[in-house]
């Protein structure tokens, strides 16, 4: 009987240890993921223009539109917009206009983007 009780308690203690082991494992896994994804995520270097955040892409498109207003060089504008990696320059400007409108860009800037978009559509 004594031996049975001893084995029983040992077995339960073993169970508790495994449970604790997995609980700590899960908590520390969560800590590791949080640190790696949120606190200190992978920092990419040497990225391309295609991976820029949408607000930067929109500002890039706006710069192209600002220059286009002056030089009226549609080929130059298309080449610059192509670097952003969209299927077409007009798609790029549609996205930029959509973001600009959500982000509260001012009307003159919106007009610049719209004028370039119209010019691109006419040239195609």
């Amino acid at each position, binding site marked *: 009987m004594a031996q049975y009780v001893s084995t029983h308690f*040992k077995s339960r*203690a*073993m169970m508790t*240890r*495994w449970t*604790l*082991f*997995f*609980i*700590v*494992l*899960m*908590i*520390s*896994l*969560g*800590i*590791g*993921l*949080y*640190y*790696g*994804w949120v606190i200190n*995520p*992978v*920092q*990419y*270097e*040497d*990225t*391309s*223009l295609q*991976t*820029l*955040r*949408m*607000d*930067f892409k*929109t*500002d*890039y498109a*706006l*710069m*192209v539109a*600002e*220059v286009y*207003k*002056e*030089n009226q060089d549609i080929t130059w504008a298309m080449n*610059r917009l192509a*670097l952003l990696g969209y299927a077409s320059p007009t798609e790029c400007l549609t996205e930029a206009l959509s973001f*600009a409108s*959500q*982000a*509260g*860009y*001012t*009307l*003159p*800037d919106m007009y610049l983007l719209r004028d370039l978009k119209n010019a691109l559509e006419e040239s195609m």
Partner: protein
Amino acid sequence: MNSDRGHWYLITALVLGVSLGLLISWVIAPVRLEDTHPKNLREDYKDVYRSLIARAYQANQNLPRAKARLDLLGDENAAQALAAQAQRSLAEQGDQETARILVNLSAALQRTPAPEETSPSPTPPPEEAAEQGTPPTSTENGNNGGTPEGTDTYATRTPLPPPTFTPTDAPPFIVEERTKLCDPNITVPLIQVFATNADGEGVPGVEILISWAPDRQERFLTGLKPEIGKGYADFEAEMGVTYTIEIPESGLVISDVVITECQPDSGDPYPGSYQIYITYPN
């Protein structure tokens, strides 16, 4: 697990869990390569971005907006980064016009005093500005186009400053002075060109053509070494060779530029230099 082993199993679980978590978050499933920042761009893309900023500045003459955009690239000294890019562009036989535009923005940045710090954090990009309830831009000439006022947190459009001086709009240069220089601190033979306007201010972006044989010539611009002067340019020459300096936009030709050794009163001779001062006539 032997109960005699104490709590080492918990430490094992902790180390194992954290390691596994870092392995997943840094290697197996890292943060996706999107939504990146301009400061992380590869150098050649940074050059594209920088030259686009300079072109946009050339078009709209909005210096605060250009500054805010340059800040995004994280250059320690934006003016020097622009000048260095112009220098690289010229060295690689790149577009002269782009080099000139880069130099113009570099000079414009140096003309204006550093802005007062309004916030310890970098200027927020449009997205953050929008989240703060502030539109990213105001409009030209103070007309904000229906958006709230006082919201120029990024890429502001303040009343337009006077246009950047471009040498092509100016009268032709004349030679003010040309002189041989003996300076023991200059260890290599240099041809130094100083371009100034009628007020004595340096003029950046002046194209200089230097030739020393029918098929040997090089082009460079003033303002590529902003730390020395906005209107300064130099060329490392060879002693004894006869150079011809040309300012194509002015049709100015300075011939027979020869650098010779300087002989000090005591000590060894050292390479001399040649200084050319060009300016607009009054």
